[in-house]
């Protein structure tokens, strides 16, 4: 495996607050990484440091095994930060021309990048006339302009409507399929589960877990279930000591099982007790569990 990014003992203090605390992780080529954590866990600060907008307090990182200088590296990667940032008075085309000049890449890539995100027809419209979803897509187009080896996305679906979220996810999945390494920062577990192969869970600037998404869910599963009579459902659950209630909703609950179990088995177990589930979704285990515990603290 080729290591693309290696972060060593990275620390950032803002006065008394330690935003990132001795962070270590590695990014391998071709994987899709989720940088997962609640707001204020240090995701954006970490990305800010490796993208040179924030000066680290201590620690270091190496890109591509240190073969290139920082400014060379930034021209080889693509990144968007929290909000899409462009010159509002310029068209998408002109904005990307500036990005192309900064990245020292050909203007001829602009058409391809705009088509990738479905904005080619609107290329001559001013950025200020775009909807938030379009702005976010333009940010991805700008990041993809130089055919980067690594794409860094910071909360790309933040503030978008469901349709916008789906569009962004489709674009990310298409990019991932081509073998581009992606680092996606998000506070949404659901998003990371849908898109990522690996996850780094952050809390208070520290890494709680770093590794494949699948590896942490070897033991046990998480199910979201609903029944017409929720009280009866909860009462019945007491009969199954291997199941643990994670969360309760208005008309359903989320449970964790100690051992791996398939949906049909679970359904049958409840049916035998006289309860028919009207909703049953199997989720990636432990990740959910860990993340919920992390948020509770």
């Amino acid at each position, binding site marked *: 495996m080729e290591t693309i990014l290696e972060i060593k003992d990275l620390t950032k203090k*803002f006065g008394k607050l330690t935003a990132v605390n001795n962070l270590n992780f590695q990014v391998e080529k071709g994987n899709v990484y989720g940088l997962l954590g609640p707001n204020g866990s240090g995701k954006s600060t970490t990305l*800010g440091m490796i*993208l*040179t*907008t*924030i*000066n680290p307090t201590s620690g270091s990182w190496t890109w591509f095994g240190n073969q290139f200088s*920082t*400014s*060379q590296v*930034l*021209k080889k990667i693509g*990144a968007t*930060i929290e*909000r899409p*940032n*462009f*010159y*509002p*008075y*310029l068209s998408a085309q*002109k904005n990307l*021309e*500036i*990005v192309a*000049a*900064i*990245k*020292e890449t050909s203007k001829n890539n602009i058409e391809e990048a705009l088509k990738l995100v479905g904005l080619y027809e609107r290329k001559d419209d001013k950025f200020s006339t775009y909807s938030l979803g379009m702005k976010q897509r333009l940010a991805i187009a*700008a990041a993809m302009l130089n055919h980067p080896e690594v794409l860094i996305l910071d909360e790309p679906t933040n503030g978008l409507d469901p349709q916008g979220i789906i569009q962004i996810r489709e674009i990310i999945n298409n990019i991932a399929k081509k073998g581009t390494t992606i680092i996606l920062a998000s506070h949404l577990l659901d998003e990371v589960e849908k898109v990522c192969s690996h996850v780094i869970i952050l809390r208070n600037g520290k890494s709680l877990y770093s590794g494949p998404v699948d590896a942490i869910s070897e033991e046990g599963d998480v199910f979201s279930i609903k029944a017409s009579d929720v009280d009866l459902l909860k009462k019945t659950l007491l009969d199954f000591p291997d199941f643990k209630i994670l969360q309760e909703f208005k008309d359903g609950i989320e449970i964790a099982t100690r051992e791996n179990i398939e949906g049909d088995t679970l359904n049958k177990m409840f049916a035998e007790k006289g309860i028919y589930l009207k909703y049953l979704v199997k989720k990636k285990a432990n990740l959910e569990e860990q993340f919920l515990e992390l948020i509770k603290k």
Partner: protein
Amino acid sequence: MKRLLYIEWQKLYNYRLARIFLIIYFLLLLGVSIGLYQEFSLFGKEIRLKDQGFYSFPLVYNFLTYANSFLKIFLAFIIISTVVSEFTNRTFKQNLIDGLTRKEWLISKLAMIFLLCLFSTFVVGILCAFFGWVNPSKPPVGMGVQMEFLIFYFLENFAFLVFAFFISVILRKAIFAFLFLFVWKFIEPVIMVILNFALKGGDKTNVKKIIEFLPLDVQSNMITNPVRRTEFAKSLNIGLEYQFPTISLILTIVYTLLFIYLTYRIIMKKDW
């Protein structure tokens, strides 16, 4: 360098507000020089500046650079609004992420300021040469005499715009930057009044010297008021012979380098 200028030009030229101000500035450069060439009346007196030697060599250099130096506020407006917008639109941050280094960003802005000043100096230089050639002085004076006013003019503009750039980077809000520039322009005379008052009856020549060392005053002291060089002013005992402004020139350069350095420090040290 070509890349940096291209990037900067794309940002500036396509910014309608900046483009309009640039055109107004250019028209005013022509307008002031040509306008004052005409006969006009002031306090009921007919004034023909060209008959006083203001449009002949060598005084034309002093006069036109002095008259046009007041227009630099238009260039400062362009610098402040474009620089501040890089922070409010967070494009500065995005530029860094896209691979522009902090130093390159600074250089591209300074290069644009340099070119704007060069353009202005070039236009004023052409105007001086034209009017000096049309209005020969008696006895004839060579075109090269006191041409150094063009250098002073360039430096005055450059120093002022670097100062405007510096406060834009510090304040990062257009309205504050304009107010600060405006207020600072008045603070220097106010300091003078306060010092004068404090040293009532004392030796006031030192007060005047202190004032001459403040940044904006130093800049405008390079080009003295040309009216004081006329026979009329000399007859009123407020006349002045032309002297090469060595101290003002050196101080302007020192201040400019200082402000560039301070801007550099802020750009490099701050988290964006």
